[in-house]
């Protein structure tokens, strides 16, 4: 199971699925768009992250029988959404703390 803090690919995949269910290629493009082209996932990295998230129950496949085998969409599970919220909270606190420290250092 993934533990906090999450690796960047995993976090970006979760953020991509937080909005709506997406299949592999859509996730790949969305991650690239979200990071402004800075992060480009390879298919190996993407599916490694997807497998771990599926295994941990953070994401789940959508309508497996109806969707084509090579374009299976995934969505965030309630557990994944909760953990993503926790991670975002953790990052907010860290950002707040970093801002305070930098301001104090400049004063």
């Amino acid at each position: 199971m993934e533990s906090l803090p999450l690796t960047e690919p995993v976090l970006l995949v979760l953020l991509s699925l937080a909005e709506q269910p997406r299949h592999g290629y859509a996730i790949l493009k969305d991650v690239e768009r979200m990071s402004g082209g800075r992060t480009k996932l390879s298919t190996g990295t993407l599916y490694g992250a997807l497998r771990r998230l599926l295994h941990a129950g953070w994401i789940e496949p959508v309508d497996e029988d109806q969707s084509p085998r090579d374009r299976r969409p995934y969505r965030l599970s309630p557990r994944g959404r909760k953990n993503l919220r926790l991670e975002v909270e953790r990052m907010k606190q860290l950002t707040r703390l970093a801002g305070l420290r930098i301001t104090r250092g400049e004063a």
Partner: protein
Amino acid sequence: MLSFYQCLLYLYPATYRHEFAEEMLSVFRDARRDVSSEARARRIGFYARETWGMFSGALRERVAIFTGGYRPISFARFDMRLEFRFPRATVVLMSIIFAGVILAMRDADRIQVKYGGGDWSIWPSLPWFLGIAFLLTCALAVAVVAVLFALRRTGAHRLESLETSAGRD
């Protein structure tokens, strides 16, 4: 490049391939189409990234099998697939062990002939002894790994939890 990618997929464990190979291939095809019209440097970057991603991903999955962190995802239609076959890797490892034993026996014969004549000292035999000991240790280690690997591939380690799962249902 597509056939090279398909070959790289064989680096992954069989269960992983059955679950994701089609999707990965489809995503790779789409991504390749995107970069096909771009500059050569970007295309090379794409292929390098994909190749590296496949190697590192396959290594991570293989390591996860050995460390026990790998459990196939329970898509109903893939349950029990490939769990009870005799793994090819075990056949290879057994062949290596067999070759090791044959070599060790040949060396043992040579040592016996050498020291049968009576003119012997412990020092000339030491490198042979160390060599054979090293070979035997390697063979033993490989055998242990092979047994553990075979047990994991056959799913025998899950038998303990079988009763608990059945009880839960």
